[in-house]
């Protein structure tokens, strides 16, 4: 579904991503791991069009999306959440998700019909699936950090993506919140038939949920494979996992 081939991105003289390769098949849950500064977030930003690659190919469903703006990539079926909470803090939880649903249905430009009566079912069903119906009318900025991270995912679901990219979905969460969130992600993936690409620091989570793991180190892809292969790989053990 998604193929990243030899993608390079540098800032001034620093090569943040220097030859990354990644393959994501339909229906898979794929994790990207690597130490801080390995280029995981930069890679996600390249895939979603927030940054433009210097060279290499990013192919989604047979089409090179490397040169598109991020809103165009979203329309192709890729939605994402952000590592640092990135929501609409002054709007209600409901409207946070509704903005995405309206955009998905190409109704963002309707001028004279009240938005309050539009896409109610779609929005509520997303809120329901993340357990937020009770908080629909809270102001998003007043939610706890953990809830804001989940709202992130709910906004991304509003676009009905085929590929959902989650950048450290549990960063800053307590252990309880973390396991609840990972359960939620697993459930969503099954129920909605989502393909998920995520990055995460917690190795237990990664190895328990991912069907394929890509390891990055200093902007490069070391290996991509099944969890057991990755765990056994001597280069990965030396560079990252730190196992003797």
């Amino acid at each position: 579904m998604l193929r990243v081939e030899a993608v390079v991105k540098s800032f001034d003289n620093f090569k943040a991503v220097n030859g990354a390769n990644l393959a994501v098949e339909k229906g898979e849950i794929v994790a990207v791991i690597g130490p801080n500064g390995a280029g995981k977030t930069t890679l996600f930003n390249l895939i979603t069009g927030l940054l433009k690659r210097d060279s290499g190919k990013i192919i989604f469903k047979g089409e090179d999306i490397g040169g598109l703006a991020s809103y165009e990539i979203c329309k192709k079926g890729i939605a994402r959440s952000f590592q640092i909470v990135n929501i609409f803090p002054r709007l209600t939880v409901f409207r946070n998700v509704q903005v995405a649903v309206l955009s998905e249905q190409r109704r963002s430009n309707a001028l004279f019909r009240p938005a309050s009566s539009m896409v109610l079912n779609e929005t509520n069903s997303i809120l329901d699936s993340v357990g937020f119906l009770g908080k629909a009318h809270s102001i998003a900025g007043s939610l706890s950090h953990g809830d804001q991270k989940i709202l992130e995912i709910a906004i991304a679901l509003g676009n009905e993506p085929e590929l959902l990219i989650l950048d450290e979905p549990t960063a800053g969460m307590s252990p309880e919140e973390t396991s609840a969130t990972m359960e939620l992600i697993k459930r969503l993936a099954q129920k909605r038939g989502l393909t998920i690409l995520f990055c995460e620091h917690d190795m237990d989570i990664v190895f328990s949920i991912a069907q394929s793991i890509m390891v990055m180190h200093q902007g490069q892809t070391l290996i991509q494979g099944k969890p057991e292969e990755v765990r056994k790989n001597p280069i990965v053990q030396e560079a990252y996992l730190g196992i003797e």
Partner: protein
Amino acid sequence: MFKEVIHSKWFGPLIVILLILFILPLFIPRFYTYILALIYVTSLLAMSLNLVVGHGGMFQFHHAVFYGVGAYTVALMLKKTSLPMWTGFVAGPIVAAITGLIIGWLCVRLTRLYFGMLQISLGSLIWAIVLRWYSFTGGDDGIPGIPMPPFLSSLNQSYYFILVILTICLIVMYLILKSPFGNTLQAIRDNPQRCEAVGVNVKRHQLIAIIIATFFAGVAGVLFVVLERSVFTDLLFWVLSLEVFIMCLLGGWFTFTGPVLGAAIIVALRTFVGIFTEYWTLILGIVLILLIFFLPEGVMGYFQELFEPQTREATKGGHR
């Protein structure tokens, strides 16, 4: 589509206020009728600016230009052509919106302060052209004695005309803000990057918002001509833009009706303090300092905080 307006909790009070404003000219002296009408015109200008500033989060620093362009368009058409008068009234807002499209198209490429600076430069360019082009615009003499259609011959008639147009414009603006377009615009204000990530073409959305706002500024310009029967270059000067910006801040730029209140306060200050001292801006300065320290969300924002504790949370969560 008007259900939204009728079911709004403000609908009842709005009708009462409108009724009072309608019968008011029967009881008050001419001068106060004039001041009220001037407040309406200025309110519409401030409301139109707030569409892009308060609800759109853009640094629309030179909004008066579009007001001036609207006013000059109708003035020139009524004075220098023999076209039916209504065409002038229609042309004012449209020419203002086209100007908004051109300037906006150049500005939305930039963000925040750069957007604002470019707009001041482009707007000042239009101001300079109007000031220098004596044969066409009358330069700094302006255009006095603009003829009006018979149904606008007296001050009271103008007052009613302005009040009706203002009400219609406010309703339309309210509907726009409550529409998906308006909701998305507010989402862009909160977080343009995130909006882009959910598939919104942010620049195009902002440009449409600017066109809408400048259209209403043009309407305000036309209403100014209806009231004053003259135009002058101060209408396009950046000082007026600043004043209108202050009205939005003063009234409460995250509220719908805040700018009306801000406009009323500033016009009243200028009129009534201006009688006693020409340094009325000194009072304005003091008011502004107090505002920044004690009511950062504006007067209306303050009342909203009092009555709707939810929005207080929103303010804290918001980062701009």
